[in-house]
């Protein structure tokens, strides 16, 4: 499927649109919470909301490669924006937890991170996202060369830790958890199967030639 050719200017406008659309739910929901329109427990609601959207942007980021492999959609040019949105939402999720939920009581936060496995997992995932966000620019890609790809494979343990963190944060697993975690597991499993799938594809092409 040949994608329509877009001018570089239109391409970059589309990428900026992804950032704008991606950040809109966080800004809108923050406004709802600040103006008392987010229900009885706005802090928890906002915290959960940001966490869920972190998972969603991780899913979208990880979906780019399989969708391209399958020839369904070439979204490579949006991958950086989606990955960074996952990082922004994870950072806002942590900030909401630290500032609004734990009211910046450092001892309580440290105790949580050290003692509660699900918070430990979440914290590790956020920490691993930092080097990925810092090196998500063209200069870093040039400078790091092939090491850049290796470094950015960290997104796989981040996704796994995110799924674990999410599943342990709730009292019972429901449809929402099964769907999101199921998608993450599927996308991670695809990475394991991918080398063989690609090899089969190459052989088929060679045979045809």
């Amino acid at each position, binding site marked *: 499927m040949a994608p329509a050719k877009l001018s570089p200017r239109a391409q970059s406008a589309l990428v900026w649109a992804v950032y704008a659309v991606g950040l809109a739910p966080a800004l809108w929901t923050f406004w709802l*919470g*600040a*103006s*008392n329109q*987010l*229900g*009885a*427990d*706005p*802090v*928890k609601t*906002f915290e959960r909301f940001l966490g869920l959207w972190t998972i969603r942007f991780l899913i979208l980021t990880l979906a780019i490669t399989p969708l391209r492999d399958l020839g369904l959609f070439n979204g490579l040019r949006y991958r950086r924006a989606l990955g960074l949105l996952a990082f922004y939402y994870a950072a806002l999720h942590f900030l909401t937890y630290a500032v*609004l*939920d*734990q*009211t910046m*009581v450092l001892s*309580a936060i440290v*105790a*949580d991170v050290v*003692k*509660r*496995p*699900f918070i430990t997992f979440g914290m590790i995932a956020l920490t691993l996202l930092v080097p990925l966000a810092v090196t998500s620019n063209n200069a870093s890609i040039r400078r790091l060369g092939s090491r850049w790809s290796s470094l950015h494979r960290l997104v796989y343990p981040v996704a796994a830790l995110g799924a674990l963190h999410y599943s*342990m*944060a709730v*009292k*019972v697993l*429901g*449809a929402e958890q*099964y769907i999101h975690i199921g998608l993450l597991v599927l996308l991670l499993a695809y990475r394991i199967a991918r080398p063989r799938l690609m090899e089969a594809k190459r052989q088929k092409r060679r045979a045809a030639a």
Partner: protein
Amino acid sequence: MPSFKVPKIPSSEITPQRIYARRREILGLMAGGAALAAAPSAFAAALKTVPSPYRLDEELTPRESVTTYNNFYEFGTDKGDPAANSGTFKPMPWTVEVGGMVAKPKTFGLEDLMKAYPIEERIYRMRCVEAWSMVIPWNGFPLASLLKAVEPLGSAKYVAFESVVRPEEMPGQTGGFQPLPWPYVEGLRLDEAMHPLTLLAVGLYGETLPNQNGAPIRLVVPWKYGFKGIKSIVKITLTDKQPPSTWNILAPQEYGFYSNVNPAVDHPRWSQATERRIGTGGFFGTSRVDTLPFNGYADDVASLYAGMDLKANF
């Protein structure tokens, strides 16, 4: 510590804001000759209540929050689900079957119960195991009054409770994702059940219980985590064995039979040292406060557990 305070205006006499806000509409309806009987049954009936010494001197959680932020998985697992999905539930007519190790087992009609015992207004803290809390003006009568009426036998040591099962009216009890086994069951030791603080609530804020809060009759045990307060009770059985409780069946390492509020015993996955007090809404109306042993009712109930290891019996 309970301290008696004469209420200025009983909450039963305060017109709920949502009705007050619709006063013109309601007057219009009446003027238009539309009979009140045609009005939606969502208008809870006002209760005649008597004051009680159990009145907490803390700011009440707004009724709006108490009735829209609920854990009642029979109507769905989201906090907003019970308010959204309980509209078709019919709490009347209702009966509660009381039996087991009692001299006079009996099935009570709810209206008879409400006539038999004075409905007290009690302002209690409510601490959820998820580390949030509210202050709620309940209306109800002590469970002890009902238990005394059926005359427990000497062999009775525990009280078992059972919730209603109505998949046709409770969407959480149908479909592919059933979070809990039904019916929801709970239990208390007989001395806990007979404690004057233990309440059978039939209302809140001076009106009959909204469906999402456990209509028409629910348990309130203020020194225990909220999930012990079983809702929409149909059956109470006195027994000599420790009865099963739903969350304990589901995750015994996380939810014990006693489930007394205890800041020193954490949930395996989160801290119980502090709680978010649900406030007036908005990010800046919420506050975090220290959780108190037995939810602040230690003076009343700690003696029930004298000599017991509260860490082992969580």
